[in-house]
């Protein structure tokens, strides 16, 4: 189809949607499916087939631990959410709405901060459109930005718009997306590539899974716009092997979009062609590092290379390659449609836009939150209903490369610079809340063992450093350490930071150093008394 046909199709679908009466969505994200959402959707589709109800399996609605979630929309009224649905209660809820009322059973309050407090831009379509239907995406403005770009804008104008928006890479490093695009655009390769990094390996991070599962077209559209802007004809989505549902939905979305002429050859009747392939990872955390990720796409061991040259200069098969995080691509379409000025008005100066966080751990509601950058940690914790099982002790951000932020810094705005100043990092947006029953040396040891397992083995500082650091931490947590072990641990951590080859080794000491910075007394207590003050670590735990 061309741009006009796309426009007509959208109007038709939107009109059809507005006359369909009750709109019922069942969340079909991985957590809700694990909680039994498939049976709920099935019961609704069977039980309501003849009535004026539109039932869809939708993407993620946010509060994952309250699943299976149900959302009912009537006309232009605000949607009503129901939690922990079973087939029978879901039918009752829909029937109550059909009769003009609603039921109080498992209904979520309309003002629930977890839902009402969010500003959903990247996740704008998640929860109200069917990730397995292109039509559903089109009705929700899907591919409108791509149509505008291919029809009205020059590649340099696209890059300029993205630069002006102030968008920074959502994978963690926070590099300016527009500058990166311009680097690849001006590179003199004839063949270029665009890669979406969906290797969300940080334990406790699930934002990218959410977007890929819930609104795959949003990311594909962002990639195609990037392809147009930098002059690439091919793109790859690298999806973690642990996310089979995301891979399945992406493949389906690509095939549907290709059939409709929204991807593939001569997109929307223009001269621009862009093909996207899905590549599945195989369980290696290091593949989140961009040079390792490229090696993996090319079918090799995921071992990083020294940078420079950066992928923008020499990437896949030696050609200029643009690598952005899944969420970064999710920001593109809204920026094109609403403008750079609108995007940069959200968030704080230097940290424009929103960020998706996945909040888990000792928290009332586990799930996915999208808020403007600069929102404080306290606000995030409160939106998720507060800490469970005790008082707030620390929040872990940035996964295995990040650090722990203590209660005294709860009012820190969550942005790239503030978190770095506290010895943590923004990372991809995983946020793990811990209560005062948790043992911080145990957490540090957990992450160090993770890095030890995941080290690719190429450089010695990381390969042996993580092993030795994990041994020292095990000695501390099992109560057999001396104070000089602590000094040795610190020295080793600093050495790894400066001498490792890639980000994995350089950042592996962060959880140790940040817990040492804020919770040094806990380490010393383990050493002095020979036991864990929180009662978490066991004496037999030594390596």
């Amino acid at each position: 189809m061309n741009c006009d046909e796309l426009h007509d199709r959208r109007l038709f679908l939107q009109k059809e949607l507005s006359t369909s009466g009750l709109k019922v969505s069942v969340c079909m994200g991985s957590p809700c499916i694990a909680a039994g959402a498939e049976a709920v959707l099935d019961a609704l589709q069977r039980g309501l087939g003849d009535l004026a109800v539109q039932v869809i399996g939708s993407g993620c609605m946010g509060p994952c631990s309250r699943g299976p979630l149900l959302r009912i929309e009537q006309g232009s009224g605000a949607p009503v959410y129901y939690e922990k649905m079973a087939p029978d209660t879901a039918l009752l809820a829909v029937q109550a709405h059909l009769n003009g009322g609603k039921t109080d059973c498992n209904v979520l309050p309309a003002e629930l901060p977890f839902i009402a407090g969010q500003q959903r831009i990247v996740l704008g379509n998640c929860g109200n459109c069917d990730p397995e239907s292109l039509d559903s995406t089109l009705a929700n403005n899907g591919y409108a930005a791509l149509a505008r770009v291919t029809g009205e804008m020059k590649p340099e104008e696209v890059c300029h718009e993205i630069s002006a928006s102030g968008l920074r890479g959502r994978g963690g490093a926070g590099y300016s997306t527009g500058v990166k695009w311009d680097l690849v655009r001006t590179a003199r390769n004839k063949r270029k590539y665009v890669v979406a990094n969906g290797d969300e390996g940080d334990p406790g991070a699930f934002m990218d899974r959410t977007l890929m599962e819930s609104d795959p077209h949003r990311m594909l559209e962002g990639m195609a716009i990037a392809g147009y802007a930098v002059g690439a004809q091919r793109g790859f989505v690298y999806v973690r092997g642990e996310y089979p549902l995301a891979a399945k939905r992406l493949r389906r979305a690509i095939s549907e979009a290709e059939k409709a002429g929204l991807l593939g050859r001569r997109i929307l009747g223009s001269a621009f062609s862009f093909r996207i392939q899905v590549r599945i990872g195989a369980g290696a955390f290091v593949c989140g590092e961009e040079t390792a990720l490229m090696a993996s796409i090319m079918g090799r061991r995921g071992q990083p290379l020294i940078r420079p040259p950066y992928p923008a200069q020499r990437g896949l098969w030696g050609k200029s390659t643009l690598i952005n995080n899944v969420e970064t691509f999710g920001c593109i379409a809204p920026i094109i449609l609403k403008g750079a000025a609108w995007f940069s008005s959200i968030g704080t100066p230097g940290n424009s836009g929103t960020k998706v966080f996945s909040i888990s751990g000792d928290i009332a509601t586990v799930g996915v939150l999208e808020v403007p950058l600069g929102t404080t940690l306290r606000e995030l914790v409160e939106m998720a209903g507060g800490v469970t099982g005790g008082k707030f002790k620390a929040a872990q951000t940035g996964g295995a490369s990040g650090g722990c932020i203590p209660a005294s810094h709860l009012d820190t705005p969550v942005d790239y610079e503030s978190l770095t100043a506290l010895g943590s990092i923004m990372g991809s947006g995983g946020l793990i809340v811990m209560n005062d029953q948790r043992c911080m040396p145990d957490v540090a040891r957990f992450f160090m063992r993770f890095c030890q397992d995941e080290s690719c083995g190429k450089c010695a500082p990381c390969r042996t450093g993580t092993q030795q650091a994990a041994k020292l931490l095990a000695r501390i947590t099992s109560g057999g350490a001396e104070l000089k072990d602590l000094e040795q641990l610190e020295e080793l951590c600093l050495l790894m930071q400066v001498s490792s080859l890639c980000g994995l080794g350089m950042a592996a000491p962060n959880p140790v150093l940040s817990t040492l910075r804020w919770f040094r007394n806990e380490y010393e207590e383990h050493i002095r008394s020979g036991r864990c003050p929180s009662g978490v670590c066991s004496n037999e735990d030594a390596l």
Partner: protein
Amino acid sequence: MNSRQTDNRPGLLSQRQRHRSDALIEALHTAQEKHGHLSVEILGQLAEQLQLPPSLVYGVASFYHAFRLLPRGEHHCTVCTGTSCHLLGSTALLQKLESNFGIHCGETSADGSLSLDSVRCLGVCGMAPLVVLDGQIITADSASEMIQKIFLPLEPPPTP
């Protein structure tokens, strides 16, 4: 994926993948799905078909956690050891499973009924601690309930 395979003899590669070294990881996934694990013979066949040195194919297969070089048991249990699962008791759960079945994580029981494994975060932290049993993510309120599920006669795994 299997429907695309045209070569009946080893039946490992699709037409599209043949002689393409970048298809190796995809081909390993396909072969493992079909045969359950990646034996030396399968790796050799893949090397031949992709025209790659066997050492490289073995190197890739042994690098990634998702590839199994040894056969696994009739049932497969993977415990998530991500951060949330760790905080909420996955270590104890794994230890309990290890002692109940007399095997270590990464091993298969002597009668071949169960293999035990761990994974670093499934990204479904809302239901921690999590276990994947025969491809299905299981949520449970307590660890003991999950172990109970494993001990009970199991339903056959869903046919793909």
